[in-house]
């Protein structure tokens, strides 16, 4: 299976502080990789480097075999991102926002693309609504539509279901599973929702203090650490000292 994301020994220092300490991993086509770790473990910094918003201090990133350092624009055409910490312009309608981003990504046949995503994400009735007036569940689905507007090969998700009620959360997870299966995209999922990670991810990376302290399939990690679920594994690793691993 082809690697769509290849991260080779990337480091990020802010002055003397080492935010990411030389991590390496791959994400294959049609795979969801979970990125777990306590706050401040380096997850957001890692995602920032993959998006080209942060320059690694050293190391290399390849997306679809293209080196990010040399092919930033081509890579950004095939990648997208969703996070509860960023929003779409609140005063624009949902359709205006999707139209603007279609233009920015040079989407062909914009109307058809918006129609397709609206139907899949059940936002047809929201297209003429003001984005800022939507509920958090509705905003989340609209942001997901924006993140898929360019038919990305690689999707980076930072807490995609944070603050959603269980019904909407389940809808988003089911949608992501089906969309990944249908389009064979790679997804990097940073989440604190362990049941979500267990359900969606083929394998996970555990980060702490800028390092990968463990990795593997969720079931294998649970067995390895002698716990009953991934949340217990997370707690054990988060509370432990790094030198144990």
């Amino acid at each position, binding site marked *: 299976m082809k690697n769509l994301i290849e991260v080779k020994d990337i480091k990020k220092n802010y002055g003397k502080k080492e935010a990411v300490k030389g991590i390496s991993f791959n994400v294959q086509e049609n795979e969801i990789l979970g990125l777990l770790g306590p706050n401040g473990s380096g997850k957001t910094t890692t995602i920032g480097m993959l998006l*080209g*918003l942060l320059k690694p201090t050293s190391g290399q990133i390849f997306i679809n075999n293209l080196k990010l350092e040399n092919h930033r624009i081509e890579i950004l055409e095939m990648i997208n991102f969703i*996070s509860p910490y960023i929003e779409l312009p609140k005063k624009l309608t949902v359709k205006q926002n999707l139209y603007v981003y279609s233009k920015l990504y040079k989407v062909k046949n914009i109307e058809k693309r918006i129609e397709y995503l609206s139907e899949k994400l059940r936002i047809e009735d929201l297209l003429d609504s003001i984005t800022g007036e939507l509920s958090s569940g509705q905003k989340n689905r609209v942001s997901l539509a924006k993140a898929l507007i360019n038919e990305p090969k690689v999707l980076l998700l930072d807490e995609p279901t944070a603050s959603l009620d269980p019904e909407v959360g389940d809808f988003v997870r089911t949608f992501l599973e089906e969309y990944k299966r249908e389009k064979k995209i790679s997804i990097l999922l940073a989440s604190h929702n362990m049941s979500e990670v267990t359900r969606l991810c083929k394998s996970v990376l555990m980060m702490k203090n800028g390092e990968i302290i463990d990795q593997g399939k969720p079931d294998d990690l649970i067995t390895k650490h002698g716990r009953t679920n991934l949340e217990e594994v997370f707690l054990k690793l988060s509370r432990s000292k790094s030198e144990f691993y």
Partner: protein
Amino acid sequence: MSFTRIYGLFLRHFYLITRSFPRVLDLVYWPTIQITLWGFISNFFATHTTYYNNAVGVILTCAILYDFLFRTSIGFNMLFLEEIWSRNFTNLFITPMKIGEILTSLVITALIRSLIGLVPAVLLTSPLFGISILELGIFLFFLFLSLYIFGITLGILVSSGLLRFGPSFENIAWSTMFLLAPFGCIYYPIETLPEVFQKIAYILPLVYIFEEARNILINQTVDVENIYNAFIWNALYFTLSIILFYYSFNAAKNRGTLINMGE
């Protein structure tokens, strides 16, 4: 350079204006107030001083020119700040837009925003004060162009600061024009300034633009050298601002400012 992307970013701000009547009102309101205020002041000066005796519209024309500069510069900053305030900054910078495309789109949008405010104000001057800024003739175009370039230059410099230092730089965005205004010799000849300030004024394009506007209106002659000097200084500052913007963008990528911009 992709015109589709440039148009896309323009649309984002155009939709914002068209969706909100208060925003359109805000664009028109301040230039109109400014021009009306200075219109009455200039009427007073015209009847009580000898300097302005033969040119009733000097102050008013300079007020219109200054307002255009102010609106262009602030307008550019507003477009940039709008992305920060709406927490859309990261979304924008992860699109495949090149820096040149972002700047081009903001430059065009800032011009349209300025014109929306300026045109009604200019149209008001004729019936209210019997003055037409068009008296400056073809040279009016060069003066406006020069002011527009300098306004955009200031906007790019402030945006570079926002990129480099984050939202904390916002206060500087509002104060730049007020800092430069005294050196621009907008309403008075450069000789009015102390000698040290004159030296500073001469390295700004503003002084040449406003000196020339007064020269055309008062002396009814054209000094092409003033217009030429304004363009030379503009070319220098504009080039420096573009270089600084690229430098700030790269610095922001090193410091992580692009990720935390909305916070």
